[in-house]
């Protein structure tokens, strides 16, 4: 599964980076995106969802960051 690591990247650069990374993938691909806690995890998942992608899961790791699992949906 492709992995997009956005830890340490702040808003809105993290969202833009995620968009660009998703553009490289085939429609229907499931990816994991690593997101920092705080504003990032509050904003990035809903912005990606607003772009039409399907959110599958979101879990916090023991280290504190989040793993967002998402299916790329091309409109």
């Amino acid at each position: 599964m492709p992995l997009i690591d956005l830890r340490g990247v702040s808003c809105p650069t993290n969202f833009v980076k995620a968009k660009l990374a998703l553009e490289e993938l085939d429609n229907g691909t499931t990816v994991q995106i690593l997101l920092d806690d705080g504003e990032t995890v509050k904003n990035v998942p809903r912005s990606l969802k607003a772009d039409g992608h399907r959110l599958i899961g979101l879990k916090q790791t023991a280290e504190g960051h989040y793993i967002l699992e998402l299916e790329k949906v091309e409109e």
Partner: protein
Amino acid sequence: MSNAKQTRLDLNNLKAGGFIKERGKDLFTVRLRVPGGRLSVPRLKKIAEVAEKFGGEFVHLSVRQSIELININLKDFDAVVEALGEKQQKVASCGARVRVPVACGGCEYNPNGLVDTQKSALEVDAQLFGTPTGHHKFKVAFAGCPFDCPKSSTNDVGFSGAIEPELDKTACINCGLCAKSCVPKAIVMGQDNLPLLTAAACIWCGDCVKVCPTEAWRVKKQGYTVRIGGKWGRNPLVGTLFATFLPEGQVVAFIASVLAWYQQKAEGLGRIRLGDTIIKEGPQALLDHLRARFPENTVSETMAPQIIATQVGMSSKREIAHAVN
């Protein structure tokens, strides 16, 4: 003075107010009406043209979102009104009237907006702007969410957008983002790893709905939280809660109802603001008046507008008497 030199003015242009005397001889500020602070680009260009032709070197943005043309000569009033095109750009009001409503950007492009504040501001402007109160100014403001950037509760009637959330448990992926995002801690994660809402603690900000990645949190009810009796100035008051989830379509009728009560109760009291009238009459009187018309949205009880201590000057005759002695 010969007839040729005599200044001719259409006094009807002055009726709504908005022409404010400046320091210099014959100079006036012309306050333009910009409800909700939204201005189309062509209109902005038109205003700039008029300002360049008749005004000074700058315009001023008023604290209530109006554009003010500065240094307009009395003899140019009619030409300014004509050049602005009365249909597109009416001058604003001053004095004891319903003022131009203030609003935030609202929900169209601001992701925080819960209601269409711009639409509400336009409706109020179209139907109530300039209505004489008989007593004092009357200000209305619309905030799209409880963050309340326009400081709605410091207005005579202040509206802030609100939503009541509800959870579709089947759509929840147990991520906990709602609980994490909930500033008043009204949502906590329960034993079953599902979010648990304490309704009484909720401020209806909608953060849970906005943050939810799967739309498990949905809008159950939507409308305005309404606070009445606020004002700023020398003796500030913060308005108190009179209605919840007022539908957007009832905003004009609601304000008109408050205005009718104010006009009647302030009779004989001179230049008095709504908030001070409520303090004098007691909030229950206004609450009962509103409940008769808006039974579903009026709250069961409230309190008088809250006095803000400015810490400068003396607020009562007793204090002054004490200082004199």
